[in-house]
């Protein structure tokens, strides 16, 4: 359960203040499938960064599972990112000199899980995404779709409750893009994951049960397919 109340985010650009988000109120139920759409500069990415605790709002409160996470310090926020939130990025962000398995292992290394358990969880994760064969390949030996699947494995390896995907297919061709989307949707369905996808793509956005359109830092439209 995510609750945003009166979230604003201002950026200082030169001597001007840009209001990327203007007092956004938003509730996301656990296990919801939600898409964030809107033109560039509409604030959808900023909203996602705030949801992912990569950015702090200028004002407003953000409660995750009843806990006010805006008040947490850096270390506690990092722990929330580690344990509760998974990220999938448009540009994959894999470490080029690490193998697929090592990339997927990273969050577990950061949270200090012991090596034997790490290996087990990583190979299970890679297997569920059909990447077992590719575990020892480095990113430059993988196709775009495979890279994004490694990134998904990395996001899921610490079993988060929320998956945030920022244009996950933006850098993929149509067929591997739809494959990646299907994988993410499967995870959402099988594990009851809260899924938030930021996208330009109307078609992809419409697959979500709840579709939010943003314009100028405000929620313009909130169509909830689950609630008529």
């Amino acid at each position, binding site marked *: 359960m995510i609750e945003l109340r009166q979230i604003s985010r201002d950026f200082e650009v030169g001597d001007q203040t840009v209001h990327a988000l203007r007092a956004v109120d938003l509730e996301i139920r656990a296990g919801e499938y939600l898409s964030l759409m809107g033109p560039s500069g509409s604030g959808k990415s900023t909203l996602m960064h705030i949801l992912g605790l990569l*950015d702090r709002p200028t004002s407003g409160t953000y409660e995750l599972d009843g806990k006010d996470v805006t008040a947490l310090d850096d270390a506690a926020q990092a722990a929330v990112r580690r344990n509760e939130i998974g990220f999938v990025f448009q540009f994959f*962000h894999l470490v080029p000199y690490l193998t697929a398995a090592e990339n997927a292992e990273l969050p577990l290394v950061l949270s200090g899980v012991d090596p034997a358990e790490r290996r087990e969880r990583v190979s299970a994760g890679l297997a569920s995404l059909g990447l077992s064969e590719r575990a020892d390949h480095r990113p430059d030996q993988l196709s775009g779709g495979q890279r994004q699947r490694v990134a998904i494995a990395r996001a899921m390896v610490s079993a988060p409750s929320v998956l945030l995907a920022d244009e996950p297919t933006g850098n993929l061709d149509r067929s591997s893009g739809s494959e990646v989307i299907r994988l993410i949707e499967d995870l959402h369905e099988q594990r009851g994951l809260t899924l938030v996808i930021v996208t330009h793509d109307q078609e992809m956005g419409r697959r979500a049960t709840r579709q939010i359109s943003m314009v100028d830092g405000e929620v313009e439209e909130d169509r909830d397919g689950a609630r008529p």
Partner: protein
Amino acid sequence: MLLAMSIGVAAVVVLTSLGESARRFVSDEFASLGTHLLMIAPGRTETSGGGPSMFAGDTPRDLTIRDAEAIGRSRLIDEVAPMVMAQAKVSWGGKERETPVLGGTASMRRIRGWTLAQGRFLPDGDPERDSGVCVIGSKIRRELFGPRQALGEWLKVGDRRCRVTGILAEEGRSIGMDVEELVVIPVAAALALMNRPGLTRIMATARSHEMMDRASEEILAIVKERHQGEEDVTIVTQDALLATFDRILAALTYTVGGIAGISLVVAGILIMNVMLVSVSQRTAEIGLLKALGAPRAQILRLFLVEATSLSVAGALLGLVLGVLSRVTILYFYPALPLTWPIWAIVAALATALAVGLGFGVIPARRAAELDPVAALSHH
């Protein structure tokens, strides 16, 4: 950068090692003179006031051969050697050379521990008499006589002639004079040659190390009695000389080590630069780590560890370099008592570590403070 660090560490280790070794070398050299040695010089050295002449009359009285003999009669004194040092022209067979000439007695050899390559040293006997003989260093022998026999030849020293009875063995340098270039003549002959009444020094050895202080007092008393109540000599003991040299060389070692230490700081700045470049190159990775839930402290630690490992790797390389240069130095100068002061090695490694940590802080902080959103969009 690794190279800079290793050169810095190697420099610290090698230079301090050289300094230490010089100190050892000097003390060994002094020890070879015997630790019972007392040097008696004319004139009083005052630690305050306007100089010796204000207290001891217009000029200090000369030290004479008779003074030396009087000192030699003390029960506390083992050997005594009156000494005159000068420069003079030495010639044989049309060849001439300007060289240090030492006026001495038979006891001189025993005090200095000289050995002879050929012949005999000055004879024992009345030091007031000029026996008309001389002993020459090996270099003088080579330069004046070449391949010819030198023993028994008449050598001209200044305006006097003497017969060569001995040739000193080559034993390198002993403090203050080069034995190879020396011409030793009887002290009486040297006084006549220089046309002056006073000795340059009297060297004496105490019977034991424990008697040094008492011997020194007794010598003062003897001189005072003989010089109408004036203590117009200065006695320098082996220990005092040694302590002075020791202090000077220790200061030198620290200075040189300190200068070498500066190169470590330079290496540190290089490490900082490398780390800063590394941070900006890996901005996206740092952003990723943050997104994956690495707290600021963890990223800080990561980069500090990296900077420290770099500098420690450099330091270890430097130690290897130091070992190599030591081997090289020893190869060319096997006589040098090269030591490894443990403190120098520890200090060099500790400095390297501190430098790595210290100069790693700025880049590591920069990495830790990166804004993950901006870092992730960095390419």
